[in-house]
């Protein structure tokens, strides 16, 4: 090996090492930034009582232009078939870590304990719309199914894929039991006094009023109680959390 070869190899090695160091520093910086997310979530859990209610509004304050965001008309064939039949064959499956898995039609869901509330919907992008929601109380449904002691999170699997393709990753979200049992947490089937329209998540969407819009999963297909969501999709507990957004979206 002559001197020039040696020099170029040394430079190349130094270059690779510098790049690796930069990347490590970048990753450490990224971890540091994301560490604040945990602090923010803990601070909110600390200062906000578990049953504190999100503000509710007067009927006159309902938005006439409530924005539909994300998926507004899912293209998956299983959804299209249900939608075309007016969701008559729709059944909500509640399973996972429960004693008595449930399979409920919309009529059966409407017969369950419900709540109606006029709340604001705060999108992570920054806008707000106000709407009235009626739906089955999630906590009561979970009690009916009987959560096993290991259950820590409730996962919502949805029909929609933002790619609008059959095989694209389907939307999903998850919440912990504090939010699942919060009195305002409902599976909404009505919006503004009418059947929930397709752009807003027909036949069923989650309302979890103390978090940002992307947590309010639309087009719910199945609910699963789990001990951990590490094994689901990207492992961060939701479609957007898998793409860098906070799992706990209280701010």
């Amino acid at each position: 090996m002559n001197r020039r070869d040696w020099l170029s190899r040394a430079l190349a090695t130094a270059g690779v090492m510098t790049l690796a160091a930069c990347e490590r520093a970048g990753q450490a910086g990224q971890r540091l930034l994301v560490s604040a997310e945990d602090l923010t979530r803990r601070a909110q859990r600390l200062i906000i009582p578990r049953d504190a209610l999100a503000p509710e509004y007067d009927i006159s304050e309902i938005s006439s232009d409530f924005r539909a965001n994300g998926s507004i008309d899912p293209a998956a064939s299983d959804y299209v078939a249900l939608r075309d039949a007016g969701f008559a064959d729709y059944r909500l499956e509640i399973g996972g870590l429960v004693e008595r898995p449930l399979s409920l039609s919309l009529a059966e869901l409407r017969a369950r304990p419900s709540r109606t509330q006029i709340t604001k919907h705060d999108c992570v992008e920054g806008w707000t719309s106000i709407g009235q929601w009626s739906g089955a109380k999630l906590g009561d449904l979970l009690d009916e199914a009987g959560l096993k002691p290991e259950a820590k999170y409730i996962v919502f699997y949805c029909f929609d894929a933002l790619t609008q393709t059959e095989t694209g990753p389907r939307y999903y979200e998850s919440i912990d039991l504090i939010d699942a049992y919060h009195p305002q947490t409902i599976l909404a089937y009505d919006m503004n006094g009418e059947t929930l329209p397709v752009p807003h998540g027909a036949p069923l969407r989650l309302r979890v009023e103390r978090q940002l819009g992307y947590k309010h999963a639309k087009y719910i297909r199945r609910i699963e109680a789990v001990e951990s969501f590490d094994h689901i999709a990207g492992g961060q507990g939701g479609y957007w959390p898998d793409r860098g957004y906070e799992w706990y979206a209280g701010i």
Partner: protein
Amino acid sequence: MSEITAETAPDRPTDGHPDRPLPGGRTDTYRHPPLVRISHWLNVVAVVVLIMSGLNILAAHPQLYWGLRSTFDDPWVAFGTIPSWVMLPQGRNLAEARHWHFFFAWVFVVNGLIYLAYGFVTRRFGRRLWPTGADLKGFWPSVKEHARFHFPKDDEARTYNVIQKLTYVAMILIVLPMMLITGLSMSPGFNAIGGILLDLMGGRQSARTLHFISAALIVGFIVIHVGLVIWTGLYNNMRAMITGWFVIEPSPRKNEGDPS
């Protein structure tokens, strides 16, 4: 405005660091204790990151509204494209910008609380920043002097003048806390306990607009503050905020006949 002499200067805060005379009638005086200097520079980093990441967050929905909700067809303000170079990270990235924003929001709040506690406990605030009655009476003369780009020298430069005092007090006690209050009022989680605050802001979209206006006031402050730092002596001012020591120039009147 009557000249403040060493005898009449009220309770001059030397923080245990007596003046150091310099050649040419100049005086090196101790101005900023370590905690003030450290919190100042931490605040610089936090505020710059917060503004730049805030602009990236704004870019996700560059319209502002007043009231409880967005009226999409009738925004109060609609911004065009926000240039990439003012945003952090560069280029639109809402998820990443939010990580930056909330990390440095913690830095901003914790640093600010420590600074405020220090200012009140040591009574530094009252001594250095709170305008006295005499200060307020001298407000218009001081404005006229500033408008002519005449800045206090000599013993008058020892303490902040009335415009400085009012500006700093307004920033520290109104505008910077407004950032936190309006920011928290946009949090659907915090709204569950801070409903009164949300009502006070006039609803979430008003809170968002006020958050932007407060940020704009901070940007305005930074432009003027940095401009004056440069105009009145970049080296001396930077040295003061780094080492704590500030050089007071003698007034030209006294300089007459001075050999140096």
